[in-house]
């Protein structure tokens, strides 16, 4: 019992000492708490969560129709594409790009019309001067949007022309319907010759219709086939089908010229032709009513979140910043701790005194956990109440994750401290840990972007687990995910045992 009390007193020695030492450095506390808060605040104020505008210079033959269209359309194509003019030669444009007066050069294809006629796609060439792969990707994406938009406009103009042409089709349908009526009248009066004449005219009408309607009908039919018609229209046939049936009816008539004996069969066929013509007229009216924009771009997308809160970029980064900061504090103070004791000579005092390596490491863990928890509490108050970051989960879960993270980070720091020979080495290793965490913990880049074997590095970093846990608690309102909490604590326990064994070796007789 007495031994246990003595042991507890020895452990408490570090608690008092470490906290007193830290309290003597108010600037350190201020920088550790206020620093990250101010960084987040500045980030919140300064970060524009909108796509960057790109100054774009076009290269095209000034006399080409494409150049005129570029000038007409460029300004209205995308708000992110700022039209900076059209120049005739590539070199001038590239010089301006190098000087930085424009961000993007778009070179229009030479003789686009002839290229397309030769069954080839006409390509725009884009030049940029970005070194950031993300920005280069953005430029590429913007270029794709631009080309899609140009293609869309071409299609719209084609559809508009198609719709204009269908106006002429109305007259043809009317003529066909009139010829069908007269053929029926002739058949009813037994005037076979007149009936044959109108039969030939009707056939001619249907042939004209199929010719004129070809492109538009195929377009509408394509939309219908890809989208699938809704329930109420399932009985309706598309224009192509109606035309086909009409051709079949009139074709049958042509193959079998009207005779005196089969007038009743011919009249019933004419009834069917009438129906088909009505249906065709109806479908064409429908086609004309649909906006060309809807026809060439029938689908749009709207994304919705099932999260109950609308997150800003600051909200999203807050859990990661808290995690990185707590990890860095834990790693740095622990990393400096033992190496400093060793360098200053106090470790020699410990080795002579009754304090054991376990008591030493426990005392240090306890001291820094208390200090870290205090910092985390102040930082959290500032962030959640100062910056009004939403907290959807439970505070106790948040606190548990912070403590687990501090425990594990301290272990990492002590390991560094026991491996480093000097304080500068310890600081360097702590900085490398921070850098590693920035890249591999999911702070900036989603872990899914990494090659799977490399993800082992990610899952060796405490921050990876803690970021995931805190994002789920703070931003999704979820409970602690046992797998991630288990992973974080398992690393912490391994680091604790390793640090203890290394310290024991360091304090042993040699």
């Amino acid at each position, binding site marked *: 019992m007495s*031994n246990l*009390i*003595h*042991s507890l*007193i*020895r452990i*408490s*020695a570090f608690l*008092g*000492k470490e906290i*007193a*030492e830290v309290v*003597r*450095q108010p600037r350190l506390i201020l920088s550790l708490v206020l620093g990250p808060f101010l960084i987040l605040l500045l980030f919140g104020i300064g970060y524009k969560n909108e796509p960057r505008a790109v100054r774009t210079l076009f290269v095209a033959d000034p006399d080409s129709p494409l150049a005129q269209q570029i000038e007409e359309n460029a300004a209205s194509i995308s708000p992110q594409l700022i039209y900076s003019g059209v120049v005739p030669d590539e070199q001038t444009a590239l010089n301006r790009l190098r000087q930085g007066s424009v961000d993007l050069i778009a070179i229009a294809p030479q003789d686009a019309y002839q290229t397309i006629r030769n069954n080839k796609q006409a390509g725009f060439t884009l030049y940029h001067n970005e070194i950031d792969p993300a920005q280069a990707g953005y430029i590429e994406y913007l270029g794709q949007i631009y080309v899609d938009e140009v293609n869309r406009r071409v299609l719209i103009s084609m559809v508009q022309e198609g719709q204009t042409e269908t106006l002429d089709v109305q007259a043809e349908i009317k003529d066909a319907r009139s010829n069908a009526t007269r053929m029926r009248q002739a058949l009813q009066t037994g005037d076979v010759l007149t009936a044959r004449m109108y039969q030939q005219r009707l056939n001619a009408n249907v042939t004209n219709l199929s010719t004129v309607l070809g492109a538009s009908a195929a377009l509408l039919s394509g939309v219908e086939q890809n989208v699938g018609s809704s329930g109420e229209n399932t009985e309706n046939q598309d224009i192509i089908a109606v035309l086909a049936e009409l051709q079949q009816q009139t074709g049958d008539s042509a193959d079998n010229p009207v005779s005196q004996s089969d007038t009743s069969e011919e009249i019933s066929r004419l009834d069917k032709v009438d129906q088909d013509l009505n249906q065709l007229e109806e479908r064409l009216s429908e086609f004309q009513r649909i906006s060309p924009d809807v026809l060439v771009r029938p689908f749009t997308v709207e994304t919705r979140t099932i999260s109950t809160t609308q997150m800003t970029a600051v909200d999203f980064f807050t859990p990661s910043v808290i995690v990185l900061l707590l990890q860095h504090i834990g790693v740095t103070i622990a990393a400096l701790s033992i190496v400093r004791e060793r360098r*200053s*000579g*106090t470790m*020699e*005092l*410990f*080795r*002579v*005194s*009754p*304090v*054991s390596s376990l008591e030493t490491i426990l005392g240090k863990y306890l001291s820094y956990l208390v200090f870290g928890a205090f910092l985390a509490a102040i930082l959290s108050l500032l962030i959640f109440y100062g910056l009004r970051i939403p907290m959807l989960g439970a505070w106790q879960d948040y606190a548990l994750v912070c403590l687990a993270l501090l425990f594990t980070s301290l272990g990492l720091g002590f390991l560094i401290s026991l491996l480093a020979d000097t304080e500068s080495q310890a600081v360097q290793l702590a900085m490398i840990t921070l850098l590693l965490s920035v890249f591999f913990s999911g702070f900036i880049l989603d872990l899914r972007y990494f090659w799977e074997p490399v993800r082992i590095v990610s899952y060796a970093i405490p921050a990876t687990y803690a970021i995931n846990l805190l994002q789920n608690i703070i931003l999704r309102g979820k409970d602690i995910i046992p797998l991630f909490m288990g992973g974080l604590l398992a690393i912490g326990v391994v680091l604790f045992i390793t640090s203890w064994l290394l310290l024991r070796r360091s304090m042993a*007789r*040699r």
Partner: protein
Amino acid sequence: MSEHVVEATPVGGLAIHANNLTKKFLEEFAVKDVSFDIPVGKIFGFIGPSGSGKTTTIRLLTGIYEPTEGQVQVLGKAPKDFTASIREQIGYMPQMFVLYPDLSVWENLNFAASLYGMNPVGRRAKLTPWLDFVELTDHKTKLAKNISGGMQRRLALAATLVHDPALVFLDEPTAGIDPVLRSKFWDRFRDLQSQGRTLFITTQYVGEAVHCDIVGVLVAGQLVALDTPEALRKRAYGGEIVDLETKEPITFEKMFQIQNMDFVKGRIRPVGTNRLRIIVDEASTAIPDLISWCNENGLSTESVSEYVPPFDDVFVQIIETEQEKQGAQSGAADE
């Protein structure tokens, strides 16, 4: 500060027993075949130049280092078998100031007390006398970094003693401090001794040997002398020293006669024309004989007194003697 009693008096009344203690770093001897016994309650002075192996010896005794060869028992136990309770009876003051500069004098003392498991209840009452002992009571709220070097040494001494150790290792406690403070330190050490503690003190100041009960002289890792200060002094010169001064010049013939006297040991050394430095068996018996001889031989004595050489001289003499001995041994080995 308690009126101290050594709690665990080791068998045979020895606080430390070292036998052929040897420590090698790689192939180099830091300490070689060092043997000594230190009885409980004595001040043992370990004297030697910088790099002679004093700190290594302390580290071997306190269990920081493991000996390459030899045995050591401290408070009856080998350092590898030290229990927490044995460690609680040992105080250690390293050569450098290793306490925390950002803690106050009081906080440093409190930390040291906690490190030795001292109960927080009533701790203040136990620490305050130690603060008085090292005269730092008025400075207890000052940060350690803001006090003078001398005060830092005193703080380190207090931190070494707060847990009331029976055996205290002090590694060059007086290094780098002024003579007045050094003298005060030795007063404190004697106070500690009077409380029954055993002190193992290393020093580069040879003159401080006089304050010790037993002195070990360490040169290049080897213990070249181990004795009381008086015995060492005698051993260094082959006897006690008497200075004889006459009114008349001392002729060569008379010098020869003195040299041949029974109580004279070694060669006499003229200092000027009418003064001799003579090494004798016992100064107290030699002085009356010398006065009688001078009267009988027509010499008027101006003064006859015992000369007590400073320990620096004793140390130099011991080293020279040791080197001569080693030279003779190596010469004999060569032959």
